[in-house]
C-alpha cells in the first residue's frame, strides 16, 4: 500500500475543524500529543458501549470480554515491539510512571537491604543524558537522593548530538543503570542506543530507553536496541491518553520489588505481610486504564496498517522539506541536527527578536498549533544556550503545504515584531 496522506487525513476528524475564527487547523504539535483516527475513537466507544466491565475479577460474560480485550492488547503491544512474551509488557499511566516504576523499585530494593543489580548506595552511579525530558531526569535525581548514589550524564554537542567522547569515563563498573531517550523530544536527534547499551552491558549496567518519541514514528524492536527496559505512551502514537507501556525483560521484572501496592498485584495478603503476583500483574495495582488498552491496540493496528516503514519514509521527506524551508529564514536557528540524518520529525528553533511565546501566538492566530517553551527539557535548553524555543512536530497526517504555512507564519511574526529579513 502506498502512503496517501490525503486519505490518512480523512481518518482524523479533528483535522476538519477550524480554529481562531475559521482558520483551518494546522496541527504541528504531535510530539506533545498526537491526534486520533476514527478507528481508534470507535474502539474506545465500542468498548464502553458493549464490553465494559472490570478485568480479572468479574465472573460474568462482560468481565471475560473486557479481560480478553485488555490482555489481547498486551499481546498486541508485545508483538509490536518485539517483546519475547506478553508478560514483559506492563501497562502504566504514561512514560513518566514507567520510569518512576523502575526508579522506585530500585530504591525499594535498596531500602530492603537487598544486594544485586537493583540495590543502590553511595559509590553507585546512574547515567543519563543532558537531552532528556524532565521525566527521565527527575526520577533519577530523586532516586540518587534517596540512596546516596551519584547521578552523571552525557553532554550534548552544539549540533544537538549526544557527546559520547567521554563514554569511557561515564560508563564504568560503578554504573548501575543508563537511561536515555531513543529520540530527543526537542532536537529530534535519534541517539545511538545500541552502541551505548552494549557499553553499559559490558560494564554490568542496565539500560532503560525512553522511547516516547520514537515508537510512534519508526519500527522499534526492543531486542535489536539492546534495551533492558523501554517506555512509551499511547497518546503520542494515535492512541488514548492515560495509558503507557513499560517493557522489561522477564527475568528483571521477576526480580524487581513492586512499586505501587494495592489490588490485583498480590498473590496472598495477610495482616503482617503480602506476597506478590508474577509480572506483569505485580506492577499493575488497582483498576487499570481498561478501555484504553484495546484502544491503544487499535492505534497500533492503525499504524501497522499504514506501515511504520512507509510512515518513516514519508516523515523523512516532510522533515527534509521543512528543514529546507526554515533554513531560508534569516535569524532562524534550528536547535539540533540541521540535516535530516538520524533525526525525527520534531524541529525546535529560535528566531532572533521574537520570543517563542510570541512566535507561537502569531502562528496560533493563523491556525498553526506549535509548542513554545522549554518542552520539559530545561537542562537541554541551557546547554544549547537558549532560554526557550518554538517546536513544530510533524506526524503522518501533516503535509508539505503545512510546512510551508509554518515558514510563512514565521515570516509574518518577524514582520509583526519588526525583525529579520522577512
Amino acid at each position: 500500500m502506498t502512503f496517501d496522506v490525503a486519505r490518512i487525513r480523512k481518518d482524523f476528524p479533528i483535522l476538519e475543524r477550524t480554529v481562531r475564527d475559521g482558520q483551518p487547523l494546522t496541527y504541528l504539535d504531535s510530539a506533545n500529543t498526537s491526534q486520533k483516527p476514527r478507528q481508534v475513537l470507535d474502539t474506545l466507544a465500542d468498548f464502553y458501549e458493549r464490553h465494559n466491565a472490570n478485568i480479572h475479577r468479574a465472573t460474568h460474560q462482560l468481565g471475560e470480554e473486557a479481560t480478553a480485550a485488555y490482555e489481547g492488547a498486551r499481546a498486541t503491544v508485545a508483538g509490536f515491539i518485539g517483546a519475547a512474551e506478553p508478560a514483559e509488557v506492563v501497562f502504566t499511566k504514561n512514560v513518566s510512571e514507567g520510569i518512576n516504576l523502575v526508579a522506585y523499585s530500585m530504591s525499594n530494593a535498596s531500602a530492603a537491604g537487598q544486594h544485586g543489580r537493583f540495590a543502590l548506595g553511595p559509590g553507585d552511579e546512574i547515567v543519563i543524558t543532558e537531552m532528556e525530558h524532565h521525566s527521565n531526569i527527575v526520577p533519577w535525581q530523586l532516586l540518587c537522593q534517596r540512596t546516596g548514589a551519584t547521578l552523571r550524564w552525557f553532554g550534548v554537542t552544539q549540533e544537538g548530538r549526544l557527546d559520547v567522547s567521554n563514554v569511557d569515563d561515564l560508563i564504568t563498573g560503578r554504573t548501575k543503570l543508563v537511561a536515555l531517550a531513543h529520540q530527543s523530544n526537542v532536537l529530534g536527534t535519534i541517539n545511538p542506543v545500541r552502541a551505548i547499551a552494549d557499553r553499559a552491558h559490558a560494564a554490568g549496567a542496565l539500560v532503560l530507553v525512553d522511547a516516547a518519541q520514537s515508537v510512534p514514528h519508526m519500527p522499534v524492536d526492543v531486542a535489536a536496541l539492546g534495551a533492558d527496559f523501554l517506555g512509551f505512551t499511547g497518546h503520542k502514537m494515535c492512541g488514548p491518553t492515560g495509558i503507557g507501556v513499560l517493557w522489561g525483560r522477564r527475568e528483571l521484572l521477576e526480580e524487581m520489588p513492586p512499586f505501587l501496592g494495592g489490588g490485583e498485584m498480590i498473590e496472598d495478603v495477610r495482616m503482617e505481610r503480602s506476597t506478590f503476583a508474577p509480572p506483569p500483574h505485580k506492577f499493575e495495582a488497582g483498576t487499570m486504564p481498561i478501555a484504553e488498552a484495546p484502544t491503544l491496540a487499535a492505534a497500533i493496528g492503525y499504524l501497522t496498517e499504514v506501515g511504520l516503514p512507509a510512515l518513516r519514509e514519508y516523515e523523512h521527506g516532510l522533515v527534509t522539506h521543512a528543514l529546507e524551508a526554515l533554513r531560508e529564514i534569516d535569524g532562524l536557528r534550528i536547535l539540533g541536527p540541521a540535516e535530516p540524518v538520524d533525526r525525527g520529525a520534531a524541529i525546535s528553533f529560535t528566531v532572533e527578536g521574537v520570543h517563542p511565546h510570541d512566535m507561537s501566538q502569531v502562528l496560533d492566530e493563523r491556525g498553526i498549533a506549535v509548542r513554545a517553551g522549554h518542552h520539559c527539557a530545561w537542562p537541554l535548553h541551557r546547554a544549547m544556550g537558549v532560554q526557550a524555543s518554538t517546536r513544530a512536530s510533524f506526524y503522518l497526517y501533516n503535509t508539505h503545504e503545512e510546512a510551508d504555512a509554518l515558514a510563512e507564519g514565521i515570516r509574518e511574526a518577524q514582520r509583526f515584531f519588526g525583525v529579520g529579513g522577512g
Partner: protein
Amino acid sequence: MRLESLYQEIILDHYRHPHHAGLREPFDAEVRHVNPVCGDEVTLRVTLKDSDAGPVVADVSYDALGCSISQASTSVLADLLIGRTVSEGMKVNDEFLALMQSQGEGEPDEDVLGDAVAFAGVSKYPARIKCALLAWMAWKDATAQAMVRQ
C-alpha cells in the same frame, strides 16, 4: 486583527524600550521568579523608604528574560509603582490581577492601572496570563519581604 488587540502598541513600546530596567543598589529585598511553563524569569529588587503615609516604593529594578508580554508587563509595573505607597501599590496589584482573571470581560480603570490597561486583551489567552503576572507576583513577594525587614 486579534493580534493587534493582544499586542497593543503600548505593550510593544514597553517591550522594545523597557523602563527602569537593570538591577540597582541599594535594595531591601530581591526575588527571582520563574514561569515553569516557558522558562521566563525575572529577578526583581524592591527598595522602600518611609513617609508620613507609610512605606513608599522608592525603586523597582529588575533583570527580566522572557516574551513581549512578560517584558512589557515588568516595565509597566515599574512605571506604575515607583513613588507609590506600598498600600496603593498593593491595590494596583490586586486590580491588575483581577483584570488578568477577567477572561476578556474586565473593564479596567485607567485611573488605577494606567498603561497596564493595555494588557486587558491578554486575559483572553489563558496561556499568556502567567506571562503578564510574572513580575507582579515577584513585586508582591519582594515587597512583603522588604516590609518584614523594615
